[in-house]
């Protein structure tokens, strides 16, 4: 439900109603022209052809999908049966074949199901033996008198209060019920409505647009503005880091080219696969920049460290030393992101898939393009200082690595004990993690949408809609006195128990009003009809629009609950209360089933899916990564050791979330899975080089020392570049992206440091040489 609130000093005014009428007509026109425009654009048809195609679907959809498909895909039939001119018939059938009938049917849908406003809401009144169902006001006769009449009517029936008008008379709201359409189309539609309203302001009238679709869609649309500058920002950061690491333009230029190529390929793939930009996928370029930089860093480090002088030989050697590690590191990262494909939430799933593809591109680019770029150069290979002075030099990273080597070598037990302590503390923190998917968390204070949501939630019953449906199991009527009585008590109880429940509406509200109007408007008749027969006949008498609360054959009732926007966990309590209120005994006595539905219900479902998805994708990526490690290292103990930094890093991630009060939501829940894929890279690089060094030296201490000298520096640079890349996200306008970036940066950094601190200690303690 989209809510458009129009506020002024007096909402019962001609000006307000005229504006509501203008908005309604604008939305209607947009609604009607929208499918043809999209079909025309997406199928490459002219306006007339799209209109014709819509007409064909419209006239033939009752005949079933198969029949529709065979008609639309056959130009001869289109011509002979539907009188479509030959060329157009060919064009239409080709276009339908190309995009598939399913897509055409998706584009064919009207975005809006229903628009409710003061202009088309029913009013019921009795007058002697007359029973009248009419509109609150005739939209063609809006004048001071009719508006005053209307105000009287609105005030006479509590049903409208906080649903149609605010209690203080300053706000009236139009609600637009959307059909379930492709999220991209819905977003486009919502943006257009907002744009047109903004372009046509009325003096003295403020407009507030809110409601779940607007919020979720705004999330995705305003993220685009973030993309505009976060990407250049992260690229600049990468240039700075590469400069600091290599201090040579080749070390900056080639990895940067790799980064840019993989980002372009990935964005192109998104377009080809028709994956929309969402709150999460907005981070794809930044994530790729960070990840791809790591592969470049490893390759370039080993390239420069090669003792060979020719570019070709050095590239070959670098490939030998780091190639396998880079490939495995990339594959595990692909697994980490790929595990999100198991998510039931489309945005997360898409994000996982596209990033996994992007990481794969980065891998290809890093191990194919970078060596090629290097070899294409005619000049001799530059000799970099850090290669000479590496170990005994006085630069910070060398000193730091030297310190780590000594410490972990001398006190491996302490290192492991401290790690264990950190894990325990983190587990303690995990307990206080809160599960929350309030989309409003996505917005900063003072943003339009937050102001509108707050305002509408304050003045009205609430923008969150939860429906409770009571449906007969055997298709009989559900309007028995027992059921209606229970609903009556439920409406009273839930409203008094939860302050967030702003309003409930059920068929009872209509029945009571009718009973009163049928009995001369006397307030003592403001109660439910005396028996089922009367109830049934009242429903017959009611000729207005009542489909929202009861089906016409009276076998299904719906209770609308308007809830103020708040924490999802609180709303889940409300839903739980509602569902258990209609207990087993009630259900079996009355032969009904009771279920919840509505947009809120979807959000709550999504919320539970987060936890399930979190656990399953976490386990999946851990398992796959462990198998990969076992395959590479062919050693149980090395596999185990390689996984320790991951466990520490992930535990710290959740621990920090608990301690800082960062909620687990759609975005923060993917941090762990992603971190596994990236975090294991450090273990791979470290252990891979350790095995090579051990083979040469046959001594654990020497092997560890050489590993620090060789890959330690690359890992450190890698940790810095990835962390910095994700930290860039903290400059996003959106709190949730900031949390995402911050958490990944923290987790990746923890895992990276854990790898170069814990792995040597663990190797020392295990004391066993690696198998060859």
């Amino acid at each position, binding site marked *: 439900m989209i809510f458009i609130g129009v506020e002024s000093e007096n909402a019962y005014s001609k000006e307000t109603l005229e504006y509501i009428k203008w908005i309604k007509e604008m939305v209607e026109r947009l609604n009607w022209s929208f499918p043809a425009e999209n079909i025309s654009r997406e199928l490459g048809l002219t306006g007339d052809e799209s209109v014709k195609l*819509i007409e064909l679907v419209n006239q033939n959809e009752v005949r079933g999908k198969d029949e529709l498909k065979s008609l639309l895909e056959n130009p001869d039939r289109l011509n002979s049966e539907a009188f479509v001119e030959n060329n157009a018939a060919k064009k239409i059938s080709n276009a339908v074949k190309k995009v598939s009938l399913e897509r055409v049917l998706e584009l064919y849908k009207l975005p809006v199901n229903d628009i409710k406003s003061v202009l088309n809401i029913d009013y019921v009144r009795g007058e002697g033996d007359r029973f009248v169902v009419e509109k609150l006001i005739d939209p063609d006769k809006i004048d001071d008198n009719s508006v005053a009449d209307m105000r009287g009517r609105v005030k006479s029936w509590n049903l409208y209060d906080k649903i149609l008008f605010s209690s203080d008379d300053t706000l009236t709201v139009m609600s637009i019920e959307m059909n379930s359409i492709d999220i991209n189309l819905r977003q486009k539609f919502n943006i257009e409505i907002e744009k047109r309203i903004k372009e046509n302001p009325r003096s003295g009238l403020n407009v507030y647009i809110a409601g779940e679709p607007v919020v979720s869609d705004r999330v995705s649309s305003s993220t685009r503005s973030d993309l505009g500058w976060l990407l250049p920002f992260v690229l600049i950061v990468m240039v700075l880091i590469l400069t600091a690491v290599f201090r040579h333009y080749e070390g900056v230029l080639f990895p940067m080219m790799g980064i840019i190529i993989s980002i372009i390929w990935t964005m192109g793939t998104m377009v080809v696969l028709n994956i929309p930009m969402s709150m999460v996928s907005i981070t794809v370029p930044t994530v790729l920049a960070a990840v791809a930089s790591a592969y470049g860093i490893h390759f370039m480090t080993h390239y420069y460290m090669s003792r060979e002088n020719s570019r070709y030989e050095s590239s070959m050697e670098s490939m030998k030393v780091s190639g396998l590690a880079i490939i495995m590191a990339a594959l595990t990262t692909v697994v980490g992101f790929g595990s999100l494909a198991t998510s039931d939430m489309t945005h997360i799933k898409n994000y996982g898939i596209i990033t996994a593809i992007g990481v794969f591109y980065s891998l290809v680019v890093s191990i194919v393009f970078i060596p090629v770029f290097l070899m294409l150069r005619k000049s001799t290979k530059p000799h970099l200082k850090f290669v000479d002075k590496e170990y005994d030099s006085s630069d910070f990273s060398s000193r730091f690595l030297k310190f780590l080597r000594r410490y972990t070598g001398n006190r491996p037990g302490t290192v492991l004990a401290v790690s264990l302590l950190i894990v325990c503390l983190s587990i303690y923190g995990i307990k206080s993690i809160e599960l929350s998917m309030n989309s409003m968390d996505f917005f900063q204070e003072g943003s339009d949408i937050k102001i509108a949501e707050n305002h509408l939630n304050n003045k009205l019953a609430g923008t969150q809609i939860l429906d409770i449906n009571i449906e007969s199991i055997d*298709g009989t009527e559900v309007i028995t006195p027992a059921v209606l009585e229970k609903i009556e008590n439920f409406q009273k109880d839930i409203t008094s128990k939860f302050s967030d429940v702003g309003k409930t509406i059920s068929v009872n509200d209509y029945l009571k009003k009718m009973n009163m109007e049928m009995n001369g408007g006397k307030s003592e008749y403001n109660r439910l009809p005396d028996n089922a027969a009367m109830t049934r006949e009242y429903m017959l*008498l009611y000729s207005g629009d009542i489909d929202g609360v009861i089906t*016409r054959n009276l076998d299904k009732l719906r209770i609308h609950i308007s809830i103020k926007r708040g924490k999802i966990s609180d709303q889940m309590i409300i839903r739980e209360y509602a569902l258990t209120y209609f207990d087993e005994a009630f259900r079996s006595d009355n032969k009904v089933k009771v279920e919840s539905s509505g947009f809120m219900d979807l959000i709550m479902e999504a919320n539970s899916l987060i936890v399930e998805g979190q656990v399953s994708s976490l386990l999946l990526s851990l398992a796959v990564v462990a198998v990969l490690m076992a395959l590479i290292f062919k050693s149980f103990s090395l596999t185990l050791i390689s996984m320790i930094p991951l466990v520490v890093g992930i535990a710290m991630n959740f621990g920090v979330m608990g301690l800082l009060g960062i909620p687990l939501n759609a975005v923060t829940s993917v941090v762990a899975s992603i971190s596994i894929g990236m975090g294991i890279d450090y273990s791979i690089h470290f252990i891979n080089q350790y095995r090579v060094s051990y083979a040469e030296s046959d001594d654990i201490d020497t092997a560890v020392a050489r590993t620090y000298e060789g890959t330690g520096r690359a890992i450190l640079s890698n940790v810095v570049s990835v962390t910095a890349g994700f930290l860039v996200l903290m400059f996003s306008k959106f709190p949730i992206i900031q949390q995402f970036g911050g958490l990944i940066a923290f987790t990746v950094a923890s895992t990276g440091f854990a790898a170069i601190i814990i792995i040597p200690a663990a190797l020392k303690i295990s004391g066993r040489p690696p198998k060859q």
Partner: protein
Amino acid sequence: MKNMVNGSTESRKAVVMTVTKGGLTQALIRFTDSSYSGTTMLTVERPGKDNLQYLYLPSVGSPRQIEGSDRENNFVDTDFSNEDLGGSRIADYNYKRLADQKTGAYDCYVIERFPKNSSSKYSRHVVVIDKATMIPLNIQFYGRSGRVVKTMRAGQIRNIGNSINIPMYLEVVDIEKKRQTTLSVAAAEEKALNQGYFNRNRMSAKWAEQ
């Protein structure tokens, strides 16, 4: 009545009586089975004014004059609108004649009519009328979106006496709500009626025809 999504159906029997005096029709419809048994509706056509409609509900005990602002609203819980069942007025539309066509065995006029009322649910109707009996055989209702939202078909036209022709079969499909209502006439005859039935105060009376 049929829900076209889940296939559930519901049926109901009714007796309909109509008289025409001076070109104006009065009609009575009474449900004779199901929980609606006894529910009776009286429609009285008036020159130049909206029809008067009374609904007698057994449990309420006295008839109520019902006034819907909208003739396009459905007749009780069917998919027929009040208009479909004879409540339509010539003056409510602008007309345009389209080319004649043959529908099955029937030679037909085709007209397009446009509601004058701006708050109508429909932008236009395309009506196919049997030339011989002047009974509409097919009506396509175009919503304001320009799409067909409802169709009505009539068939099996029978002559039951003095130039009285009625379709024995009427079907309305609500395309948006995916519901269908079929009206099948089991028997129809022309006969002398007790005109006292057509009185709002006698709507509860038992009919000989029941």
